[in-house]
């Protein structure tokens, strides 16, 4: 794996305008996505991870808008591009796979039309026959018989549709694929197959994949690195081994303990206390402090910085920052 950074997100902030005021669904988040890795982004529902994923393509409209930050993709800051140039990036360089494969394909278009349209949108000079052949080769590579490109989405199963979605991203050799909860609506067997396929494709095409999920198991299965989001902030980032073996942020620790395990007896499953905070009125200081078993005075006053804590591991927690370490006091 190369250390070369494909996508560097700097201080990204996304706001939703609501009647009650602006809600920061992504607040000052920085993240580096390395070339050729699978980066798992985990977090509770509503922590802003899907918003973050969409923001990487500047896909927001309506009440949401990116209010700050830089998006350095492959040497360019996407925030500096005019919005009218974004369609050229979307699909061609960054692809996206959505959560529900049943609704993410146009019901009145054949699979083939989806693929050829993608190809023609970005490479108008491609002939129909070429585009068709490419589409057929691609779906065949993904394990769908090539005759089936003539079918409509409703004639395919959820797993097949999800593979079609991936093929849309692969059709133009997108460098980065953002997969937003791609396996949530699939059953476990199809899910396992799909994850295997993702890994294969990553190796074969040198894909970079941002895998957004709330399922820690999925991340453990495929991810090279893991990013943990909590309440619109990045809590912890590190390699999968580091994060799973030695989680630094108390939230990550709680999250890992809450994963159901067959070996646990009845009543032994850890439940994190409290509720995720409202993003309209986030807690002062560290956003996790009301639920944190290690909370200190400073936690409520000042937000910790997002800093390296070990080799490649970063976390935003006072426990690992300057005087915080000495003053660690368990409640």
């Amino acid at each position, binding site marked *: 794996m190369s250390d070369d950074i494909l996508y560097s997100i700097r201080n990204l902030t996304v706001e939703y305008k609501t009647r009650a005021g602006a809600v920061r669904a992504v607040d000052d988040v920085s993240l580096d996505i390395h070339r050729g890795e699978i980066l798992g982004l985990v977090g509770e529902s509503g922590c802003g991870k899907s918003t973050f994923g969409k923001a990487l393509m500047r896909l927001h409209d309506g009440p949401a808008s990116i209010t700050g930050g830089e998006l350095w993709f492959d040497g360019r800051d996407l925030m500096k591009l005019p919005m009218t140039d974004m369609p050229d990036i*979307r699909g061609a360089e960054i692809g*996206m796979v*959505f959560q529900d494969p049943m*609704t993410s*394909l*146009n019901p*009145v278009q054949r699979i083939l039309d989806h693929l050829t349209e993608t190809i023609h949108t970005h490479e108008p000079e491609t002939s129909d026959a070429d585009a068709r052949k490419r589409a057929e080769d691609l779906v065949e590579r993904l394990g769908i018989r090539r005759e089936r490109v003539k079918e409509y989405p409703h004639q395919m199963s959820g797993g097949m549709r999800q593979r079609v979605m991936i093929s849309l991203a692969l059709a133009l050799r997108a460098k980065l694929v953002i997969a937003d909860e791609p396996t949530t609506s699939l059953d476990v067997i199809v899910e396992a197959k799909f994850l295997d396929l993702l890994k294969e494709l990553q190796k074969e095409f040198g894909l970079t994949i941002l895998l957004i999920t709330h399922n820690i198991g999925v991340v453990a299965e495929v991810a090279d690195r893991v990013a943990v989001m909590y309440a619109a902030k990045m809590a912890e980032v590190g390699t999968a081994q580091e994060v799973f073996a030695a989680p630094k942020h108390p939230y990550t620790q709680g999250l890992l303990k809450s994963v159901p395990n067959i070996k646990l007896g009845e009543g032994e499953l850890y439940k994190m206390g409290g509720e995720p905070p409202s993003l309209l009125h986030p807690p002062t200081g560290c956003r996790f402090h009301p639920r944190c078993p290690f909370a200190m005075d400073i936690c409520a006053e000042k937000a910790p910085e997002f800093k390296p804590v070990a080799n490649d591991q970063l976390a935003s927690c006072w426990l690992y920052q300057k005087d915080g370490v000495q003053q660690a006091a368990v409640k």
Partner: protein
Amino acid sequence: MSNIDEKNVNTPPEGTTWEVELKQVGFVRRLLMARRWYGADWWFVAISAVMVVGFIIVAIFPQWFAPYSPDALVGPRFIAPNATVELSILVVPVDSPVNKLQDLAVPEGGDRPAVAVEQGLPTSGDLNDESQKIDQTLKNQPEGLRLRPVIDRYTSLDETLQAVVDGTDKAAIVQTTDLDVVKENYPTLREAGSITGEQAGGYLMGTNDIGQDVWSRLLWGTRVALIIGFSSSIISLLLGVPLGLVAGFVGGAFDRLLSLLMDSLYAFPGLILAIAITAVLGPSMLNIIIAIAVLYIPTYYRIVRGQTLSVKEEVYVEAAKSIGARRLEILSRYIFPNVIPSVAIIFSVNVADAILTGAGLSFLGLGLPPTIADWGIDLARGQRFIQTAWWMITFPGLAILLVVLSFTLMGEGLAEIFNPKLRDR
């Protein structure tokens, strides 16, 4: 559906069986099998579709079906359906060149033709009136022909006809019913039609107050009704659909302004608005079409806008953005095709509605010039004679009912068949 499923209870499901079957059959079978698959009453659709096609054929080629021109005064007034009336019939020898009363005319000063009539019947009066009429027109023409027949009166029908057989008279004028009785006895005579050119009967739906054939007017009226129905619906579709698409897609102030306009148009009582528009524009086919089209634009606008609003939030539209589709592409390839099925269905129901409104306008005398064969006009005309000539108002009314019913049934039935959300009820 149930009996097919039972067979395959133990085989692994490869989609449900009807889905597999559905793939193998064509459109016609699908239509016929609709009841089994979707629970729609397929025969409603089948019958109404046949009727719609029938009406369209009649509208395009009324002359194939109508015995007379819609404007022709073909017979006496107020003949009941299939009734016969007494007419004065011209009877001539078989070898005579005379085929109508006018053929008896001779040059000025020539021998006036003798015509036999029976005493005491209206035939002599008819002959007198009709020959004077013909004489008046002949007098002014360069041929110098005159028609002033000598009327020979006989005491019985047999004497009258015998006079023609003997050659005493050139022709005889006999009443229809009398002639029918004795026709067999005179093989050397033939009928040369009624002296007025009218027919004695056989009008399927009778004649109206000026002697036009109701059936023929009905058939020709189909053309007018369908032209109004289709063209006004197409115009409102062509305007309403793009406006709804754009308003729903763009949103914002444009949407709000347009919706306000459309809603106020929609809030108006339909017929009154149409009356106002035609009153301003004046009666003509084009104006009535425009008035009705304006009336139905909001119907398309509202449905298309609503559908667009819901479709544009679908994940596949977002997915389309994520593969780099531009706004125009999203509108034309993702939203429009998903919106159009509901438009097709309201179109069919809308045509029926437009026909009804068109007939209503004509009925009120605001629609078409009264010379045009139109159901609404015929209704208005028949209404005055409803006590004496029920057929004048009944048949155009039935025609409107049938057309509207078949279009509505077809629209609703197709909606049920092609809308997957309604199947499996």
